């Protein structure tokens, strides 16, 4: 731990860089995946093609992708943006199918009743489909969050700083403590973001029965459960 004590500022700096790369990549993935998932849900035939291309993109090796993106977008190789775009591609590829499933998971009886009551098309999306898609969507977001946080480290290979630098530097200079801090730091960050997502999910879906046994019990016990959620 002496290595960590003397390099605290450096590690913290790399942690911040890591978060700055991972979070935008995850956010872009979520937004694009929701759009693609919605398209796939709305037009199943086009969806098969879109989701097929998406999963194909996931199979592109990371290093070539990091070279190709700057060329295609005309941005510097070592820019953080390059890595964010690459990670967003992977995240989207991984999440788009789940997003389509999330929209399919919405009970058609609920959608139909909502439409018959007079929700407009946009109202139906924002007020009914999207909130009800959250549980399935969130399960996918948790997966890509963990995978994105871990993938950020490869940026170190092309000179985009993150906790990955601790790994490359530690290997080159044979500092075992630095490698351990890099690995544990990355894992802890992934776990922390995952916990945040679980908490956010619980706040977004207070209507879900979290304790089926209790909900099935008598009406008397269901009331405090609701008040607790309020």
């Amino acid at each position, binding site marked *: 731990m002496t290595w960590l004590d003397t390099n605290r500022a450096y590690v913290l700096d790399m942690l911040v860089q890591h978060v700055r790369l991972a979070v935008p990549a995850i956010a872009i993935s979520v937004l694009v995946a929701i759009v693609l998932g919605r398209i796939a849900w709305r037009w199943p035939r086009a969806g098969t093609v879109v989701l097929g291309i998406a999963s194909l993109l996931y199979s592109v090796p990371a290093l070539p992708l990091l070279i190709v993106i700057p060329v295609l977008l005309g941005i510097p190789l070592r820019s953080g943006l390059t890595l964010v775009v690459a990670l967003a591609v992977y995240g989207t590829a991984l999440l788009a199918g789940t997003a389509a499933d999330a929209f399919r998971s919405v009970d058609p009886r609920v959608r139909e009743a909502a*439409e*018959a*009551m*007079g*929700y407009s098309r946009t109202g139906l999306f924002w007020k009914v489909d999207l*909130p009800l898609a959250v549980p399935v969507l969130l399960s996918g977001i948790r997966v890509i969050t963990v995978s994105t946080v871990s993938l950020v480290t490869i940026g170190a290979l092309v000179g985009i700083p993150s906790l990955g630098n601790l790994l490359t530097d530690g290997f080159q200079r044979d500092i075992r403590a630095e490698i351990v801090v890099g690995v544990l730091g990355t894992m802890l960050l992934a776990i922390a973001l995952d916990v945040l997502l679980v908490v956010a999910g619980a706040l977004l879906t207070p209507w879900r029965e979290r304790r089926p046994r209790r*909900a099935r019990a008598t009406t008397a016990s269901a*009331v405090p459960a*609701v008040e607790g959620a309020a």
Partner: protein
Amino acid sequence: MGIEFRDVGKTYPDGTVAVTGFSCSIPSHRTLALVGTSGSGKTTLMRMVNRMVEPTTGTVLIDDRDVHELEKVALRRSIGYVPQAGGLLPHRRVVDNVATVPVLTGTTRRAARTAALQLLELVGLDPALGKRYPAQLSGGQQQRVAVARALAADPNVLLMDEPFGAVDPIVRRDLQDQLVQLQAELGKTIVLVTHDIDEAFKLGDQVVILRTGGIVAQTGTPQEILAAPADDFVRDFVGIGRAERSLQTVDVDGRNIVVDGSGRPVGVLT
């Protein structure tokens, strides 16, 4: 006035004929019950009223106005809709479910919620249930909420899509009794879809019995249909031959006891 189906038909792009040449009208403040087996087009017909389904031929009129000329969303908001079981918004509290349409049409959330609590009482629910989510209510309670929600914007027309089909018989009878009572008070123009002939007879002023392909087997009041079933299909469907439909009276110590076809006493003639 009221609702009029004028020679409507619905053929789907794949060639399936759901309804052909259906005409029927129901005066304001009356209940039309569309009854038939699955595939008889009864739900399709009801859904034409709020343009969830567009007829391929003919027109549907509400108070002499062709619904096709009305804006879809506004039309739907002006019509109360009671869905089948499971049609409540699971992510909204009961009170917000009931307040849905008023909020959509611009009533403040607070005012809509206050009104919603009163509506819960009107349909026989404890307003304290307003705080719960639909999944925390019984099936019967959920359908009461669905009725309250349909009434929230005080529409003239109510569409009911097998509203009590999924609840157990005792609860179903309760809900039907309540609807009869509410209707006596509110006088809505109702189109009710059901596969249960007893429900159709109990709730409908006018009953349309449909056979596969949306062909009308018979239209009439429950009395007319029971008195003169048009054909064997109708006779079968309403169960003329069934024991509980063939009642007779027997004299027991000077009182007329009504017994069904199997001799089981069902009541006293007064």
